[in-house]
């Protein structure tokens, strides 16, 4: 283990140093890397280029003998395929025929009809030629045509010698095959101005017999002598064909390449948070490709020649090597703190990932080594390439990619600096750099409404880039211009290259006037010298120039008939020949070269003979010149040929042709335009996903998993939401309830305050609960005692409470218009007037304490000093008399101030017995000893459930108690208040349904309960107009076996979750239990239900269940947290849960798949709230954080106060006006989110 650690440390340190190096000297390193890539790729130059083109080898005819099968070492020139006999010998007879002299009475058809007719006689001649052997014994005997080629039966020979010659009916596909020369050189067309017809007869031989061929050649030459023929006949060419790749073979190859590109696409798409995404993606691809090239080059250098088909294994090699490391590196580097120097960032990023990179590489090498030992040659070779490729890839990653990344990061920092400067200039106070730094104490906050969150569009850093591209395209009208230019160029090319187009015309013009233009001597293609003048320039502008000084040096390089075309085209115009000239040139010597290289393979494939990896030998052609007299031509004429008047044909045809050209141009231009538009459209769609405004499709799945939320550099700068603190409670806030307009809070001291949720003003204070009925006045008497005044120091509250001046009497409270009747106890000694108010420190729950003022605090270690001191400081004016010193005060208040919190949801069972006892104890005594455990606010009514089991209804505005129900004895743990119904869950697992009735006449009995409290006679309550009653309609005694922990109501349903692992759904109207939902293996800790009847529950087992409330079936069940699920919220698309493990998980609501999770700091609160569809707010240690739900990005953290250490936000309410209320120790915090407010409007 220690060895491993050491190794890990060393690797990490090495990577760190390497990162520093790379980031420090980027340019030299890139140069060095490029040089090494080039060096390693140098041996590749010696490799043959990939491709399936045939390879040629030329030998002499005279000393030809069939090569032997054995390889002969000494013949260095001889290629290794030149072994054994060829598949066939090809003997071509090249025929040039013309009708001469040309008679004007002849029609154009005569040009080729009779010359082609001669082919039959020649064929007969060849067939019947005998010299010691007949042709039948020498030629390649073929059998059936390939099945499926039946239609060619009439033109291709079957069952006999393979001897191909042109027939008269020739289809377009077979024309080249039968003529043996490319179609446009044959001269068989209506526009043949040269009036010479060229064709070959192809004779395929299986054996080579020099004597037979010699005699055939002599015979043909003798019959049809070629006058000026100087063709060489001493070379035969052997053509070797590589393995064929047909379409059928191509499909898998193409598939692998498609998969490869998809892989590269999906990989590089993950590159994020960099300056130039495309640049880095390109660098990644370059890294992988050049590593492959290097591997092949290195292998070749060390004498290992690749035998595998490179194109086939290439995708697999890329996939094996992979782009993962590159991406991991990028991610690691960009997630380092932004405020570091670039060098350090690179170094840190590298060293963070060093271990995993090395581990992965070792694993891959091991796998490949295993592959090497399969001892299959092909796999071994693959593995060898892969190993070298992996190593070189590692090298390139470390040197090339890292350096490119450092350059990119540096560029981004510069850009970022530029981008941020103007933004910060607009802010009144300059904010200190990164997010995490705690804000300075918030300024006096001029008004909350000027504060804005950045809109989502600007929050996303990638979006503007895409938009920028599109804007750029739109601004410059690039698409239209490209289309226009493309169309113009296209039309130009078409016009220029069209046979009947401008080029021919120009060439003819020039050759007419050129002194050297006369091609009669042959071999001087005129356009060779002329064409460069026009090419590229505007052809029309050169029309005017005098052609005399046109470039005259005509090179002698008429190589392999590349320019033969020009000969047919422009030549004939110049000398209008009456006698067609039959010329033989060098280009006729190997006329087969002008054929497609598929010519021979396809010919043989018709007879199911493959030429793949084999060769054929092509013998020198036999030239045959045939002159026919006009009489012969007329004799062979078809009767219909003369029906068309000869001169009109070419002209009309030419017209048609130009028309066609125009149409062709138009159609092609249109097609090109449409294609370009489509292309750009696709580009646009690729760059801009459709719904980028609402929800980032591409970013939706981003997982933020382990990244600490704040280390992620480029979150927007801290903006200036500052919370509004609502002070007034002097102890920690227990319950929080709101109905949107009002906000009610209850602290540990039992004081209930009502606030205006809009302005944060304190409307009502219901002080420490202590109610006694006074028979004399018939009113509720506020049993304030000597501690009646609370929170005197917090003057910012408008509060209904009597201020410090109300000590001596009760008149003031009435005078202020608050109908709360108060009567201070007369027993209050006056000497206490200038004492600090210590009311809130007193807990009046004496249930399990003997009501002794001298008792020591039961909780050891609780320091009252701080609390008291604070209260003391806030008390003004400070008393000059010294006797209520803090130390004495700390001992003097009733020490029953055990800061008993409301039983936490998880372990309330522990409180069960204790509270039973407490309630039992309270029964006999006064009810002010119980504390508020649950509170709800609807309309004007606050429903408060007490630990004593009493349910009270308070008027929120007036602060008066409207009714009380004491039917239950077990403490109310949870309340739900919907419409006019209140549901109370009790500690003993029972569920009580109450109905609130308003507008009852005054005399009705108001307090049904508490018959045992005889000490207090019932008396009519003071009320403004209405009488509100609260009746127990139904009590479900054993709703749950164990205490109910959560109670939620929505959409006419009440859902209760309990410690007994079940969730029950009740109907609100008739309190009928609809379902018992079982599925958790722990107590229920969180429930969410909303108007759309979505029910989610979370338990102590860390599981989250989604239920269908209509059927009671479980929709999904996921485990997300280690420990309790503390809070659950749903939006329309996802479920958000937080747990005791400080993790916030976001789940897809329909599938139950975890989208991502956010790891919060330890001790972050568990409170959650959803402000809008995409804005999540969480409570933390003294702060609330806003998150973008689509991206999982931290948008903002708002600190609630300066001295917030250790104070977590435990409760968080989202109000309708997009404000957030959260508790913060003894204070409440109201945070506005104005941008959302605008959105809601």
């Amino acid at each position, binding site marked *: 283990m220690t060895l491993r650690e050491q190794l890990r440390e060393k690797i990490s340190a090495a990577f760190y140093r390497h990162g520093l190096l790379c980031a420090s000297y980027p340019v030299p390193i890139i140069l060095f890397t490029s040089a090494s890539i080039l060096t390693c790729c140098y041996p590749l130059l010696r490799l043959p280029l990939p491709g399936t083109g045939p390879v040629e080898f030329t030998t002499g005819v005279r000393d030809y003998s069939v090569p032997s099968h054995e390889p002969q070492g000494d013949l260095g020139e001889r290629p290794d395929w030149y072994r054994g006999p060829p598949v066939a010998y090809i003997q071509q007879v090249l025929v040039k025929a013309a009708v001469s002299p040309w008679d004007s009475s002849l029609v154009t058809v005569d040009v080729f009809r009779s010359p082609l007719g001669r082919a039959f006689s020649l064929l007969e001649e060849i067939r019947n030629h005998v010299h010691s052997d007949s042709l039948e014994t020498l030629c390649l005997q073929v059998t059936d045509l390939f099945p499926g080629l039946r239609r060619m039966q009439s033109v291709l020979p079957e069952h006999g010698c393979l001897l191909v010659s042109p027939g008269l009916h020739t289809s377009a596909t077979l024309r080249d095959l039968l003529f043996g020369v490319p179609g446009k050189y044959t001269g068989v067309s209506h526009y043949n101005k040269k009036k010479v017809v060229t064709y070959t007869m192809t004779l395929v031989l299986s054996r080579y017999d020099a004597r037979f061929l010699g005699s055939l050649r002599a015979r043909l030459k003798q019959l049809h002598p070629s006058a000026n023929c100087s063709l060489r006949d001493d070379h035969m060419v052997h053509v070797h064909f590589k393995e064929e790749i047909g379409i059928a073979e191509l499909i898998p190859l193409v598939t692998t390449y498609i998969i490869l590109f998809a*892989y590269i696409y999906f990989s590089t798409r993950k590159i994020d948070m960099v300056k130039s995404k495309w640049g880095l993606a390109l660098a990644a691809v370059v890294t992988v490709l050049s590593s492959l090239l290097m591997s092949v080059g290195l292998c070749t250098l060390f004498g290992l020649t690749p035998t595998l088909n490179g194109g*086939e294994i290439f995708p697999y090699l890329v996939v094996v090597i992979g782009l993962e490391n590159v991406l991991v590196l990028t991610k690691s580097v960009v997630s380092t703190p932004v405020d570091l120097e670039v060098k350090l960032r690179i170094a840190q990023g590298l060293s963070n990932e060093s271990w995993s990179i090395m581990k992965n590489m070792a694993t891959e090498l091991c796998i490949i080594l295993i592959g090497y030992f399969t001892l299959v*040659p092909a796999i071994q070779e693959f593995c060898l390439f892969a190993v070298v490729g992996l190593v070189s890839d590692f090298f390139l990653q470390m040197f090339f990619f890292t350096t490119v990344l450092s350059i990119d990061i540096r560029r981004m920092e510069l850009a970022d600096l530029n981008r941020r400067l103007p933004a910060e200039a607009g802010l009144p106070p300059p904010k200190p750099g990164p997010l995490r730094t705690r804000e300075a104490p918030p300024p006096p906050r001029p008004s909350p409404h000027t504060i804005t969150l950045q809109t989502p569009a600007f929050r996303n850093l990638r979006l503007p880039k895409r938009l920028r591209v599109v804007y750029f395209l739109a601004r410059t009208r690039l698409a239209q211009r490209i289309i226009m230019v493309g169309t113009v160029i296209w039309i130009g090319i078409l016009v220029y290259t069209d046979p009947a187009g401008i080029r021919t015309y120009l060439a003819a013009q020039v050759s007419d006037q050129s002194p050297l233009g006369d091609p009669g001597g042959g071999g001087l293609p005129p356009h060779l010298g002329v064409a460069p003048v026009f090419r590229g320039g505007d052809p029309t502008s050169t029309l005017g120039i005098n052609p005399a000084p046109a470039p005259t040096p005509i090179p002698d390089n008429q190589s392999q008939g590349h320019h033969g075309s020009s000969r047919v085209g422009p030549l004939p115009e110049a000398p209008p020949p009456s006698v067609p000239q039959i010329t033989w040139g060098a280009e006729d010597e190997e006329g087969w070269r002008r054929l497609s290289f598929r010519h021979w393979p396809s010919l043989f494939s018709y007879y199911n003979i493959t030429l*793949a990896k084999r060769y054929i030998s092509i013998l020198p052609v036999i030239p045959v010149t045939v002159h026919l007299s006009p009489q012969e031509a007329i004799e062979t004429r078809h009767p219909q040929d003369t029906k068309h008047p000869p001169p009109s044909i070419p002209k009309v045809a030419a017209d048609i042709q130009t028309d066609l050209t125009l149409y062709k141009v138009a159609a092609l231009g249109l097609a090109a335009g449409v294609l370009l538009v489509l292309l750009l459209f696709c580009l646009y769609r690729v760059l801009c996903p459709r*719904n980028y405004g609402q929800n980032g499709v591409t970013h939706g799945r981003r997982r933020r998993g382990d990244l600490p939320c704040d280390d992620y550099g480029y979150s927007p700068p801290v903006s200036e939401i500052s919370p509004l603190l609502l002070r007034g409670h002097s102890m920690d806030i227990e319950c929080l309830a709101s109905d949107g307009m009002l906000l009610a809070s209850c602290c540990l001291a039992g004081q209930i305050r009502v606030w205006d949720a809009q302005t944060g003003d304190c409307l009502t204070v219901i002080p420490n609960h202590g109610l006694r009925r006074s028979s004399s006045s018939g009113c509720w008497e506020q049993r304030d005692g000597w501690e009646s005044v609370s929170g005197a120091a917090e003057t910012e509250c408008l509060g209904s409470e009597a201020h410090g001046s109300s000590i001596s009497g009760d008149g003031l409270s009435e005078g202020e218009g608050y109908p709360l009747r108060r009567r201070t106890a007369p027993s209050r000694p006056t000497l206490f007037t200038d004492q600090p108010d210590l009311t809130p420190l007193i807990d009046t729950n004496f249930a399990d304490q003997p009501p002794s003022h001298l008792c020591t605090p039961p909780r050891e270690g609780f320091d009252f000093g701080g609390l008291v001191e604070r209260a003391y400081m806030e008390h003004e004016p400070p008393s000059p008399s010294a006797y209520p010193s803090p130390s004495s005060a700390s001992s003097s208040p009733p020490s029953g101030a055990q800061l008993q919190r409301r039983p936490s949801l998880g372990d309330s069972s522990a409180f069960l017995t204790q509270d039973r006892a407490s309630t039992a104890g309270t029964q006999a005594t006064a009810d002010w000893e119980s504390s508020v455990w649950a509170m709800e606010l609807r309309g004007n009514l606050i429903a408060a459930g007490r630990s004593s089991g009493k349910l009270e209804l308070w008027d929120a505005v007036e602060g008066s108690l409207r009714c009380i129900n004491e039917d239950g004895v077990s403490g109310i743990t949870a309340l739900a208040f919907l419409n006019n119904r209140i549901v109370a869950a009790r500690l003993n697992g029972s569920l009580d349904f109450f109905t609130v009735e308003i507008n009852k006449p005054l005399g009705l009995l108001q307090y049904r309960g508490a018959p045992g409290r005889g000490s207090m006679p019932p008396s009519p309550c003071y009320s403004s107009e209405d009488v509100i009653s609260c009746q127990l309609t139904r009590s479900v005694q054993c709703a749950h076996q164990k205490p109910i922990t959560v109670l939620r109501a929505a959409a006419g349903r009440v859902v209760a979750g309990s410690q007994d692992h079940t969730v029950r759904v009740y109907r609100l109207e008739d309190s009928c239990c609809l379902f018992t939902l079982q599925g958790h293996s722990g107590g229920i800790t969180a429930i969410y239900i909303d108007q759309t009847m979505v029910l989610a529950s979370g338990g102590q087992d860390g599981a989250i269940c989604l239920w269908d409330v*209509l059927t009671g079936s479980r929709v999904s069940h996921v485990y997300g947290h280690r420990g309790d699920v503390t809070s659950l919220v749903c939006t329309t698309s996802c479920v958000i849960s937080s747990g005791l493990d400080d993790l916030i998980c976001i789940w897809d609501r329909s599938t139950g798949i975890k*989208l991502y999770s956010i790891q919060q700091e330890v001790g972050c609160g568990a409170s959650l709230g959803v402000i809008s569809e995409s804005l999540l707010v969480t409570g933390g240690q003294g702060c609330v954080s806003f998150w973008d739900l689509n991206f999982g990005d931290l948008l903002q953290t708002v600190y609630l106060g300066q001295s917030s250490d250790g104070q977590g936000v435990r409760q968080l309410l989202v109000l309708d006006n997009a404000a957030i209320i959260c508790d913060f120790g003894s204070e409440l915090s109201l945070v506005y989110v104005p941008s959302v407010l605008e959105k809601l409007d």
Partner: protein
Amino acid sequence: AGKGGEPLIYIMYNRTTNLLIRGALLFSVGVFLALVLNLLQVQRNVTLFPPDVISSIFSSAWWVPPCCGTASAMIGLLYPCIDSHLGEPHKFKREWSSVMRCVAVFVGINHASAKVDFANNVQLSLTLAALSVGLWWTFDRSRSGFGLGVSIALLATLATQLLVYNGVFQYTSPDFLYIRSWLPCIFFAGVITMGNIGRQLALYEYKFIQEKTHQD
């Protein structure tokens, strides 16, 4: 209840369409892979460039691609289903790039089985088995995936044996009863691959719903 029921039905509706879309996608992927891989298998007998290329693409019997497509759709839907039932969502390498890599390796395994000359069948089968397990380990690593892969591979092998036994088609050189011994490995790799694709597609389910809601 009616008010609350509407969105739920809406979700259900979306879910079925989503299921159909996923099924169709998986089916087409399966058909495509079947065609391509079959082509690889029969390729050696294909002569060069015959004029009827199209017929050689469909060189196998007509029922093979639909069968493969159906099977892949089933497998691709089964994997996420099983994941959610077991309550252990597959978290290992859930990215399209990884899925593409997986598909590429699967095609490569087929390629190797068709094109590489091995000394004997045992070597071939062992190599392919190692490659298949390597595929699982690299891209899946879930026990459910392995179990499902093995069981489906066995079933498919059995089915193929029966088919060959009944003379529906045959292999040129059978070495494992009636079939080639590498067939189970190929099946296993195929199941893993399709499962991977299916799981990845299942991730997208919520997206369709979101788009639907946005359209409203």
